[in-house]
C-alpha cells in the first residue's frame, strides 16, 4: 500500500518565542520529519557597515556596540582592535589585561543568558531564572565600571576610557568564584534531568567534517570535536600569558553544545581570576592618531558565538573606506538546515536555540 505523505512549508518566526530575535526559519516537513529548511534573516538590518563609512573611527564605536545586545563588549573591542591594527598601534600592557577581564566577564554574561533562554526553550522553567540571576551580578560589575548596564562605550583607540580600580578587581574575583560554584549547580540540575537529556542528546547532530566545511565556529564547532579557539591559536592582548583550557566534545549534538558553553563559563572565570592577579600597573590609555593609512587590516577574535572578524580599510584620512564584519551567528544560521534534516518538528526549538543566535549581529 502506498501512503501519500503531504509536504508543506512551515514558518517558525519571524515572531516566535524560540527565535530569540527577529528571524524566520522556514522548514519543509513531510509528515513530521523535516526534509528541507530555509532560514530567512534581514529583518533587523541597520546597514552598520555603510554607516561606519561616513563616521570617524571613534565615532563609529558606539554603533558597533549595537551589533550584538548580549555581547556588546566583545564587538566594540573587535572594531577598536581592527582600527588599532590598521594604525599599527599597540595598547599598553595594563589595557591589554583590562580588555581581557571585561571581555571575559561579558562572555560569562552572554553564556549565562544563553543558558537561561535555552533551558526555557526546552521547557525547563525552573532553571530559566537561575543563570539570569547570576548574570545580573556581572552586569552590576560592568555597570560599576562603565556606568551603563548594556551599552558600555568602554574602549578607546589606544586603550580604555577609564582605569579599573581595586574594588572592581576584587569584586570580579568574588563574582567569578560565585559563578564558578553555581555552574556546578546547573550541571547537577541538568545532567540528571531526564526530559532535558531526551530533548538534547543525539538531537541536531553534525559531524566534524561537515561542521568544518559548513563554516561553524566557536562552541558549535568545538562541540563537533574540533579543538580550535582563536584565543589559543592566534592570541591577542594578554591571552597568550594566561592559562586556560579549551573544552572539546565529540558528540556534535545539542547536549555537547550546552556542555561546551557551560565549561567555557568556568574557563572564563579562570581567565578573569588570573588576569586580576597578574594585571600590571601603568598606563591604561596610550596616544593614538586620528588618521589611518590607506591600507587594509583585519583581526580575528573569539566571540561568545564563534569566530568574529573585522576588516577595516582606511582612506588615509579620518574615516574608513570599507568596514566588514564577520558575524559568527550569520554563518552558523546558514548551517542550520544541515542540523535539522531528518529530525522532527518538536526538535526544532532545541536545535535552533543550540547555536546561540543573536540577530543584531546576524543582520548588522
Amino acid at each position, binding site marked *: 500500500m502506498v501512503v501519500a505523505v503531504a509536504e508543506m512549508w512551515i514558518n517558525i518566526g519571524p515572531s516566535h518565542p524560540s527565535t530569540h530575535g527577529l528571524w524566520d526559519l522556514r522548514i519543509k516537513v513531510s509528515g513530521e520529519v523535516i526534509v528541507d529548511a530555509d532560514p530567512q*534573516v*534581514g529583518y533587523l*538590518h541597520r*546597514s552598520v*557597515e*555603510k554607516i561606519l563609512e561616513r563616521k570617524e573611527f571613534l565615532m563609529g564605536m558606539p554603533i558597533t556596540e549595537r551589533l550584538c545586545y548580549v555581547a556588546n563588549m566583545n564587538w566594540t573591542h573587535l572594531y577598536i*582592535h581592527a582600527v*588599532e*591594527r590598521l*594604525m*599599527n*598601534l*599597540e595598547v599598553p600592557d595594563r589595557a591589554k589585561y583590562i580588555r581581557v577581564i571585561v571581555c571575559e566577564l561579558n562572555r560569562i554574561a552572554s553564556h549565562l543568558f544563553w543558558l537561561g533562554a535555552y533551558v526555557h526553550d526546552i521547557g525547563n522553567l525552573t532553571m530559566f531564572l537561575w543563570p539570569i540571576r547570576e548574570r545580573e551580578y556581572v552586569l552590576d560589575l560592568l555597570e560599576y565600571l562603565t556606568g551603563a548596564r548594556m551599552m558600555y562605550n568602554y574602549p578607546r583607540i589606544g586603550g580604555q576610557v577609564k582605569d579599573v580600580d581595586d574594588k572592581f578587581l576584587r569584586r570580579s574575583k568574588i563574582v567569578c568564584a560565585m559563578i564558578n560554584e553555581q555552574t556546578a549547580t546547573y550541571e547537577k540540575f541538568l545532567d540528571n534531568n531526564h526530559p532535558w537529556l531526551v530533548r538534547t542528546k543525539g538531537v541536531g547532530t553534525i559531524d566534524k567534517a*561537515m561542521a*568544518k*566545511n*559548513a*563554516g*561553524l*565556529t566557536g562552541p558549535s564547532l568545538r562541540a563537533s570535536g*574540533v579543538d*580550535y579557539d582563536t584565543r589559543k*591559536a*592566534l*592570541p*591577542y592582548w594578554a591571552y597568550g600569558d594566561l592559562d586556560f583550557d579549551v573544552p572539546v566534545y565529540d558528540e556534535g549534538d545539542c547536549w555537547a553544545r550546552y556542555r561546551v558553553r557551560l565549561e567555557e563559563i568556568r574557563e572564563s572565570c579562570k581567565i578573569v581570576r588570573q588576569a586580576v592577579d597578574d594585571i600590571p600597573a601603568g598606563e591604561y590609555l596610550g596616544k593614538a*592618531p586620528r*588618521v*589611518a*593609512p*590607506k*591600507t*587594509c587590516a*583585519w*583581526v*580575528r577574535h573569539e566571540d561568545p558565538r564563534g*569566530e568574529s*572578524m573585522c*576588516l577595516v*580599510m582606511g*582612506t*588615509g*584620512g579620518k574615516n574608513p*573606506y*570599507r568596514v*566588514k564584519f*564577520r558575524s559568527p551567528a*550569520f*554563518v552558523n*544560521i*546558514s*548551517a542550520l538546515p*544541515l542540523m535539522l534534516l531528518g529530525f522532527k518538528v518538536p526538535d526544532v526549538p532545541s536545535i535552533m536555540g543550540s547555536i546561540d543566535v543573536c540577530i543584531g549581529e546576524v*543582520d*548588522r
Partner: protein
Amino acid sequence: MADAILPPGAPPVPTSDTPPDADCAALAGRIGAAWAGKVTEVAALNPLNHGIQRERNVLVRFGSDHRPMEAFWRWLRDEEKFEHCSLVLAIDHLDRIEVKHLLFNYTTHVTVETSADTDRLEPSVPTAALVWRGANWLEREQYDMLGVDFRGHPDLRRVLLPEDWIGFPLRKDFEYRQAGEWW
C-alpha cells in the same frame, strides 16, 4: 586612478622587516611552484606587530583570468587542508571591484587571502560555495551589498535586503532614493 588620491597629511602605510613564519613561507613556495602562470602574485606577508595579534598570512592574487580560481580553492582544501572559509568580502575601488576570500587552516593557523579584481559594470568571479559550504551565505551577502555575481553559486539570492530592493548599497555611488519605496 582612485589609488593615487590621498588626503593631505595621510600617514604612510606601515611596513615591516620581520620575516614571515616558516609555515607561511613554505606554503607560499608550494603555491608558487604548483600554480605558476595562473596566479599573478604569491607572497607570505611580513607580520607587522605581533603585540597586536600574531599574523600568519599568505596573499594570492589572480589576474584578469579567473578560471583557475575554483581549481585553486579545491587544491587548497584537499591538498593543503584549508578547511574553513572565514570571510568573503568585496570592496568597491571606484574603478574596479576587488573580491577577497579569506581561507583558514585549523592545524597550522595560516590564513590564505585570495584576491581577484573584476570589472565594475559586470562584476563576476567564480564561486567558492561549492568548495566550502560556509561560503554560501557569505557570498550571498556580498551579492546583496555590492552586486558581485558569483558564477556557479547554487543559491544566489538577496539575504539581508528585501528581494525587490533596487541597487547595491555598499557601492560608493549608491543613492538611497534609488531603492524605491523601501528607504
